[in-house]
């Protein structure tokens, strides 16, 4: 009897652990993050679904397995001393403790990868292009790769490999001898990170796509965001700045290297597919020019620019309605771009917006989400609000904008079911952002 009870407890603890391990993975194994989520969703994670699926099924990577084993060891040791319920309640903190314990090991493993990448960089010696910005980094990187592909041997790995480990992986797997240009996307969650990346991978050409309220929860303010992104210019010879962005326009005169100011009105931009964000295209064009690629070559490549997956890509459903998929992530500028695409869409029927809103905007999260649905109300005939995290703000915004019809659903599956039940030929649905599974 007692044994059966113990087995039940162990199963409960294991299931609960998976939930918190998932949060650790989603939060890039940053020590302390799991505990923060525990405060947010309740110690036992009442608000957090047990089964995760966004942004993808839980991937049992080598790193996650190590973390799971260390967590289990801590918990078994603890079970000898305290009641199982205590272990269950403390799980998020124990996962965090395991993150902390495994950090030195992970740093050593990463060091080996980075060492290999450094050796490869030193032997191949490509011209490095570094791109940062609050959004548009990955698209711009892919665009640069495409624009110069026929004229230069270039590596611009798809996917958002934007930290040291990700870049090291790109280098190890793709930087073949003879590569002339390496396009690196550099992401940052705080001051010093981009500087650190640039000291390892010094760019010749550095570009900033845009500054916006993304990851404000971690940066604190947009001024601090700008300062962190501007670190990319410190070692570069040329700065490519999107000067349509007021903060970057203000930054330009203060930069002591050559600055190429970029406007979305560059006439070449019109040759790109309309779903590609004009500023990203313009920045990519400027970078290609700096690499010595002629306008004729750039113009020939622009019409076939690959629109990255889940970034406002259009498909047709089997039921005959159009789907605009902008679920990669969302930010205020991106949502405006997406709404413009919805407004522009030729569909004669309903225009439906499905969104869980935007995340990690810190103090401005409610305000930005409300503003999003307020704007959407004048474009969409129907707004479907997904999940609970931003529900109140999104509903308030939709009401303020005078939206015709608003529905709130629990999760994306429910939203998709709603859409398939209500839409048909001539209708169009715009999915903006996806619900990460640690934000219900």
């Amino acid at each position, binding site marked *: 009897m007692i044994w059966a009870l113990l087995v039940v407890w162990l199963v409960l603890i294991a299931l609960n652990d998976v939930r918190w391990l998932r949060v650790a993975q989603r939060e890039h194994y940053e020590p302390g993050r799991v505990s923060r989520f525990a405060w947010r969703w309740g110690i036992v994670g009442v608000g957090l679904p047990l089964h995760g699926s966004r942004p993808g099924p839980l991937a049992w990577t080598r790193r996650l397995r190590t973390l799971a084993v260390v967590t289990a060891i801590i918990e078994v040791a603890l079970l000898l001393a305290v009641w199982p319920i205590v272990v269950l309640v403390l799980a998020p903190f124990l996962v965090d403790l395991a993150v902390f314990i495994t950090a030195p090991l992970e740093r050593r493993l990463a060091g080996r990868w980075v060492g290999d990448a450094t050796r490869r960089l030193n032997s191949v010696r490509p011209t490095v292009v570094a791109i940062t910005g609050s959004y548009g980094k990955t698209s711009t990187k892919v665009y640069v790769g495409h624009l110069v592909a026929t*004229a*230069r*041997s270039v590596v611009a790995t798809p996917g958002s490999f934007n930290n040291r480990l990700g870049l090291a992986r790109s280098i190890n*797997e793709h930087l073949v001898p003879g590569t*002339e240009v390496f396009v690196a996307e550099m992401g940052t969650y705080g001051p010093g990170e981009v500087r650190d990346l640039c000291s390892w991978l010094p760019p010749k050409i550095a570009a900033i796509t845009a500054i916006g309220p993304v990851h404000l929860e971690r940066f604190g303010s947009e001024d601090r965001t700008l300062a962190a992104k501007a670190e990319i210019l410190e070692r570069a010879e040329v700065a490519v700045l999107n000067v349509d962005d007021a903060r970057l326009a203000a930054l330009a005169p203060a930069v002591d290297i050559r600055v190429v100011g970029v406007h979305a009105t560059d006439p070449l931009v019109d040759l790109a597919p309309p779903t590609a964000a004009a500023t990203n295209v313009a920045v990519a064009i400027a970078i290609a020019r700096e690499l010595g*690629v*002629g306008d*004729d070559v750039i113009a020939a490549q622009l019409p076939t620019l690959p629109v990255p997956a889940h970034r406002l890509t259009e498909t047709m459903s089997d039921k005959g309605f159009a789907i605009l998929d902008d679920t990669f992530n969302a930010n205020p500028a991106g949502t405006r771009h997406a709404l413009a695409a919805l407004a522009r869409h030729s569909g004669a029927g309903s225009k439906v917006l499905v969104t869980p809103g935007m995340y990690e905007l810190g103090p401005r999260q409610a305000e930005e989400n409300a503003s999003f649905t307020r704007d959407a109300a004048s474009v969409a005939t129907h707004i479907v609000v997904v999940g609970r995290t931003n529900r109140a703000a999104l509903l308030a915004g939709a009401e303020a904008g005078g939206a015709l019809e608003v529905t709130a659903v629990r999760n994306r599956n429910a939203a998709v079911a709603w859409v398939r039940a209500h839409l048909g030929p001539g209708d169009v649905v715009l999915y903006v952002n996806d619900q990460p599974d640690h934000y219900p």
Partner: protein
Amino acid sequence: MKPGVIFGGPSPEHDISVLTGLQALRALGDALPIYWAKTGELFEVDADLEGADFAAGTPAKARPVRLVTGEGLLGKRDKPLDVSALVNCCHGGPGEDGSLQGALDLAGVRYTGPTVAGAALGMDKLAFGDVVVAAGMTSLPRTVLTEAGSVDFAGPYIVKPRYGGSSIGVEPVADIDTARARLGANVHLRAGAIIEPYKADSADLNIAVRMYPHVELSAIERPQRTQSDGTILDYRDKYVGGEGMASAPREVPADIPDALAERIRRDALAIATLAGVRGIARIDFLLDGDDLYVNEINTIPGSLSKHLWVEPPVAFAQLLADMLAEADARPTVHYTTAGADGTALRSAGTIASKLG
């Protein structure tokens, strides 16, 4: 000891080299597959892999191998691999331009195909053309294309990478200004480009040659142009949608007049000696009306030109066995230190006095 097969390599022809390598492995039966990754590393891989297993990069279960000067190929814990000689199936890039050959020479590993010198000459279209012309044969006028230089023959032209094969990067252009503009716009021309007259109505005629166990010529083939607009035999014509060069559409033996065939055979034999053919080389000619031009030599041709040996038929396994025997019988290295007996050193005095 068993033979090894090396294939892949950091080259635009990496993929087609994988196909040639796998064909050679199947024909040899018991051989050690050495895969040269696009990123430059060497690996020992399983012999039963298919082409698709290499499509996304190095296969999962690949074991790292190191090539070390004086020591050869080293596997796990630096244990030497038990390889008698390597069948070189690398097309284009450092596997066919003398780089791999030099590394294998210094490591003391025997291999099939061209030596350093033969590979380097075969890879340089300009040097090869000059050698052919100097020996009294006919080649199209051919010169280096630069931003500023001029050309003393009339257009239209064809622009080609100076080094490389497989028609990759080859472009017909109307005039010299367009040709110059392609220099900055075509990634394949970055290492150097040549320009020659474009003969729109010319036909390709190819012949393979080997020197071991005795000098022997294959049948003459006329490849068919099926894809694109038929202007030049392109990479797709040759390789995409089949098992590589061996399945490309062609006429073998080509239906051509005896006198023409005789001239091709005579030129091919002369070139085989001039270019120091080792293993199997394919020599490509252009026929424009009645004019025959030597075009280029391919020192490690796709599928090792196994499909050309039809009159009399020679099986691929036999061709490979002969190449391996040649690797043994005709060494690539002839280093000598004769003359470096210290006399010059003893009589030189101090370096300082030399400098004074």
